[in-house]
């Protein structure tokens, strides 16, 4: 794709702690085209949130150590950028919405004040124009009584309404990139459906690229064109959504898909868990991080770290695994007991 919005090369974010260096993100490449919808899927601790917080420049360093070969946004290098210029981008060209809308809204300020703030801070509109814009946005995200909403405080709203306000706020400056970190996880499913639909519409109408971080494969399947699966700070597989679900090529993706019960599955078959637990990020194994839990493990997997490489010569489809799982039988797992802490 030619119209690249965000380009990240070999991003590494680590946190020195008493127990050693926690490698939250260890070498991530990510390319986001204008107007794309990209899913980053993984379990807690896989580094999906830290990746995006780093891109937004919201990881304080120090203490964090951030290294990368390149992070460029709209052709500008973010790595060497001064904080003051970065602040000019944040909330303006790139915006983020978080999981818990209550903790991301200021409880002391009326919704109207919080919504107009980005426009005023970035000097994009007069007070009056900002108010008009805020009202338009509130209607756009499905809040019927925008006038009253502007005067209300966050606590007067339900979770779904608050998340709508958050989305409206993120959109005030018409960003080119919207990072949504588990935006619907705290919400009920019927509200989740409404919010996701709203976000999809915004993407289509405004051409905003959306990076959706989620642990819910179902949400990613319905929302994203392209999915990156993360495990222990790395991308282990990336593919167009249809390809990924049709035939996962990394053992972790396959195991993850298998472990999730589906609403359309009528069988009472046993749940198929992934044995063991994710690794300690301060003591990552030398080879593949997933090897201890993997059913396809070879001797090599424990020594040599696999690289993220194209599958079938297609650049859009990549995996980091030594094994071709489509041609290999999994080794039967004989130990189901959890590892000793």
């Amino acid at each position, binding site marked *: 794709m030619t119209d690249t919005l965000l380009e990240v090369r070999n991003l590494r974010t680590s946190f020195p702690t008493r127990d050693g260096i926690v490698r939250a993100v260890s070498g991530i490449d990510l390319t986001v085209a204008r107007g794309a919808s990209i899913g980053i899927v993984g*379990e*807690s601790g896989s580094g999906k949130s830290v990746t995006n917080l780093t891109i937004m420049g919201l990881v304080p360093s120090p203490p964090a150590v951030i290294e990368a070969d390149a992070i460029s946004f709209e052709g500008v290098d973010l790595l060497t950028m001064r904080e003051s210029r970065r602040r000019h981008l944040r909330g303006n060209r790139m915006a983020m919405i978080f999981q818990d809308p209550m903790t991301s809204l200021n409880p002391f300020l009326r919704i109207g004040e919080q919504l107009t703030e980005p426009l005023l801070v970035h000097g994009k509109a007069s007070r009056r124009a900002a108010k008009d814009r805020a009202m338009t946005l509130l209607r756009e995200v499905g809040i019927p009584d925008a006038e009253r909403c502007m005067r209300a405080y966050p606590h007067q709203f*339900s*979770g*779904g*309404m608050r998340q709508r306000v958050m989305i409206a706020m993120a959109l005030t400056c018409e960003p080119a990139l919207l990072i949504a970190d588990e935006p619907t996880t705290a919400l*009920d*499913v*019927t*509200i*989740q*459906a*409404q919010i996701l*639909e709203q976000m999809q519409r915004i993407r289509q109408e405004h051409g905003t690229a959306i990076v959706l971080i989620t*642990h*819910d*494969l*179902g*949400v*990613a*399947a*319905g929302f994203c064109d392209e999915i990156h699966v993360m495990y222990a700070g790395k991308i282990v597989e990336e593919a167009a*959504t*249809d390809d990924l*679900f049709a035939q996962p090529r990394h053992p972790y993706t396959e*195991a*993850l*898909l298998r*472990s*999730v*019960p*589906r*609403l*359309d*599955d*009528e*069988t*009472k*078959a*046993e*749940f*198929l*868990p*992934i*044995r063991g*637990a*994710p690794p300690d990020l301060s003591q990552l194994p030398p080879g593949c991080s997933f090897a201890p839990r993997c059913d396809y493990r070879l001797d090599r997997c424990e020594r040599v770290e696999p690289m993220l490489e194209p599958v079938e010569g297609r650049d859009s489809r990549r995996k980091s695994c030594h094994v071709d799982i489509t041609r290999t039988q999994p080794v039967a797992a004989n130990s*189901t*007991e*959890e590892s*000793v*802490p």
Partner: protein
Amino acid sequence: MSSVVAGPSTQPVLEVRDLRVSFEVSQGGFRAKRQLLRAVDGVSFTLHRGETLGLVGESGCGKSTTARAILRLVPSVAGRARVNLREDDGPPEWHDLLGASTSQLRGLRQHVQMIFQDPYASLNPRMTVGSIIAEPMQIFRLGNRRWIEENVEKLMREVGLDPRLKRRYPHEFSGGQCQRIGIARALALDPKVIICDEPVSALDVSIRAQVLNLLVDLQRRRGLAYVFIAHDLSVVRRISHRIAVMYLGKIVELADDHHLYAEPLHPYTEALLSAIPIPDPEKERARKRIALSGDVPSPTEEFAGCPFASRCHKVMPHCSEVMPKLLEHRPGHWASCLLHENDAAGAPQKSDAASSPQ
């Protein structure tokens, strides 16, 4: 594929009738008028031995409060909840939970245990895992120290934990393992019923499956009955024999898992099912989503008619005036919706036993 969920027996173990819980709340300012919040508004169900009854609904629908009221962790204002202590298939020996004295209640709680959502918050961080699991047995004086010690190790093995870890503290365990500790503690008194309040919601998907398998396995081995409270209908479908859908303190539909998912009668169930994402992009695109407008109304509101009417996609003019009753429309399939009220099997009956889901 082998079926893991064993068939339930016909012997009832827990019966809940017309349970009501309400709280007085004041909304708005300092001198605001006190309002009555009906958290649970007439819930009835019967749970059989070896059965899992899924209790689903969105936040605030009263599913957790129902569970807590059964165990009297919150006071109920009306209704009945009783547990059958009969071991064999003979006539039930009912013991009333809600009317029991404090000492009687303590004895009955031995038979109805609970597993909580947050595995860390529900374990005392200053106690070792061994003493957490031993505590219920000590309180009920089930045996001497040696016996309890042995039982702790047996229970730990049963839930898939290494007994050598019994001197460790909860913070040394992962979320999934903590939930196993909670399960071992619940099993310590050899209960008949375990109320599982969102037992896997806080766990990662790959760990979730481990804990769910354990619960299913324990049910098969011990003939346990579960009330399984969850908001994830995909999980509930796999694990439950029957499912009750709650909305604003009421059960709006109750059916076996097949009929509830294949032929839901209540529009709310339909909308709920259609909103759940399926990890399959092709199916996702083909599905028709029923968009519910707006939010759940406040439970302090007084409803003359159906509480769901304001959001319903099949609403009829008289829905906001007439309160629908929970009626049996097919054998074992209950729903409270005016759409189906005319074709219900048999007219509504006055008697409590006849008009409550069995």
